[in-house]
């Protein structure tokens, strides 16, 4: 296992990039600690696959270095980097048994059969594949095949990093739970550095200790799931994580305090307004908005029943403000007042948190 450092990395697919817009990856420096569970989260086209391919060696960055334990591997091929990868769709040999599929990466490396047997059985036990070992892989359902793919990724104990590229895409929701839990458990047992690429916030937040959020080729925040939820550093993080995402209310700053449509709003801290900032917004998640006797007057536009909670869409003028309300709570009919929890209300200047 290794500590992975990306130093002053930048990448463009254009032959002669001129400005920032030509870069699929903007300049970044990231440290991935040995044994950490990381997620790389962002929408399609945000650059996460480019970043993954740079770590695995499929893409050579235009600028910067990739270091595995301080060793420069930037020029090395994927094979020379000693990594394991699990892809979106199962990559297995249909004609082989489950056992031979799991043993394959070890046999390839010339590991002794005795040691292979021990390891294959260990991994099979972790993934509940014990009973399947003598069976042909072709007969298994999609989730069974993807489990073999996961097993093949995990079977070698000498890899620097295991990378998962949207590994649960083909899995039904009720089985996703099982496999996601399994993966988390495996991380604790195996202790390998794992990088999990996904556009799915639930998968990222439940798998990773640290989540790297990407937007437009740049890293906008690296943090624990709680950081990303409670203190989004950028409006994109607030929007992308959480369902529905963070509410954004246009505001002005007067006497060091945020005002929404003339109403003073108490925030987490006094905003530190950077010089030259032009656009100010108040950000608060639907989880931290409540109905109250006084506060911002709103009318109720729509209520959606999501089972354990209701999503209430309220409006003040043209501004939509969502609330999440627990199942069984009485809801106002037409008009109401709402209050934002100050501890979870932030001010953003040109997209970046300033409280």
């Amino acid at each position, binding site marked *: 296992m290794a500590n992975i450092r990306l130093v002053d990395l930048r990448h463009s697919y254009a032959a002669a990039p001129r400005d920032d817009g030509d870069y699929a990856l903007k300049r970044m420096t990231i440290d991935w600690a040995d044994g950490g569970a990381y997620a790389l989260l962002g929408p399609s*086209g945000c650059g996460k696959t480019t970043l993954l391919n740079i770590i695995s060696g499929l893409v050579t960055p235009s600028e910067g270095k990739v270091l595995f334990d301080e060793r420069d591997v930037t020029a090395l091929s994927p094979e020379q980097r000693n990594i394991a990868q699990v892809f979106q769709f199962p990559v297995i040999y249909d004609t082989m048994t489950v056992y031979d599929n799991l043993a394959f990466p070890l046999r390839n490396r010339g590991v002794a059969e005795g040691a292979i047997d021990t390891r294959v059985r260990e991994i099979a036990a972790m993934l509940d594949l014990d009973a399947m070992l003598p069976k042909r892989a072709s007969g298994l359902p999609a989730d069974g095949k993807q489990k073999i793919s996961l097993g093949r990724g995990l079977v070698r104990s000498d890899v620097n990093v295991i990378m998962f590229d949207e590994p649960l895409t083909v899995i039904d*929701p009720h089985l996703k739970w099982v496999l996601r839990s399994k993966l988390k458990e495996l991380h604790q047992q195996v202790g390998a550095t794992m990088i999990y690429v996904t556009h799915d916030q639930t998968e990222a937040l439940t798998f990773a200790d640290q989540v790297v959020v990407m937007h437009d080729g740049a890293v906008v925040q690296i943090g624990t799931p709680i950081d990303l939820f409670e203190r989004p550093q950028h409006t994109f993080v607030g929007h992308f994580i959480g369902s529905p*995402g963070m509410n954004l209310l246009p505001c002005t700053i007067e006497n060091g305090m945020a005002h929404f449509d003339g109403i003073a709003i108490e925030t987490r801290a006094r905003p530190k307004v950077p010089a030259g900032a032009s656009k100010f917004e108040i950000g608060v998640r639907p989880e931290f908005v409540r109905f109250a006797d006084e506060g911002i007057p709103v009318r109720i536009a729509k209520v959606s029943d999501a089972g354990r909670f209701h999503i209430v869409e309220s409006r003040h003028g043209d501004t939509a403000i969502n609330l999440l309300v627990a199942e069984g709570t009485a809801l106002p009919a037409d008009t109401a007042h709402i209050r934002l929890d100050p501890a979870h209300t932030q001010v953003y200047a040109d997209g970046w948190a300033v409280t």
Partner: protein
Amino acid sequence: MLSVFCRIAFQGSEASVGTMSIELKSVAKRVGNETHIHETDLTLNEGGFNILLGTTLAGKTTLMQIMAGLERPTEGRVFFNGKDVTGVSVQKRNVSMVYQQFINYPAMTVYENIASPLRVGRVPAPQIRDRVHRIAEILKLAPMLDRRPSQLSGGQQQRTALARALVKDADLVLLDEPLANLDYKLREELREELPRLFADRHCTVVYATTEPTEALLLGGHTATLHAGRVTQFGETAKVYRRPTDLRTAQVFSDPPINTAPLRKDRGQFILTGDVRWPAEGRYAALPDGSYTLGIRPHHITPAAPAQNAAEIDGRVLISEISGSETTVHFEVEESTWVSLSHGVHPFRVGERARLFIDTGHCFLFDREDRLVAA
């Protein structure tokens, strides 16, 4: 013979003036020795979404293909607005279908893709232009009409497929997991838009999904499917809150509903030796005996509810924190339970955990897995 024919024709024209509907009467589908769809009676009407909820291979797609006329049922009849269409091919039914994979003509522009069903239907050119532009406006495709599908994002490609399905006034629109291949946020956006798109249309909409939350948020009516059987059909929120049987409760729960054997004995429910609670209120009248308890994960929490709580101790297997919610998988005497609670509650794997069952929110099922109390 003639009179029968006239009657059917009359029914058909009468129904088309009224509301749109699709009706399956004793429909079954067998392939060789396998039964893909067991005998099914189901009537879906216009107005709101009709959701088919079930896991992969539950029979959602087969059912839709029978509705579309792409597959012929081995038994039973299919009625369209009251008219028997069982043997009628898909071309002769006025149906639109959208699939999970974005299916567009790669060599055509977005405009031509959207216009294609109208050209097939020989709609006059000026009308085609109007209708394509109108639907493109609604689906935010207006700036992309000259592009080819390969130059679009996944979300835009699926919008194009949706536009093609919407541009002709189909009697029946079948949406087979249309959002499954989209990014999380795009899915949220389109899920919001979809019901609005169909709000003022005169057609029956059927929507297949594997996701309980998606079904709830789309509202309308839901048919839960399991292993080729419709287990329940009704208003979505009612099916969720009052599943008539254990299978429906399982299909309509994500994370999975907790189930365990439960005994009622002289006014008490007994889960295990020391987890017991009084059978009160609507549970009081149940006869003594054996039941299956069903309890949704969000009704097992680390903090005791204000009333009706039974403490349950277990060993933590997995703990997941999503930022706003905590999920704990824990083990009690060999059986696994899941708790989902609001807020952040740190649990360490392997430690003993105290959790509380909200005994006011229990589903109880009898020996035949039928709901007897909720």
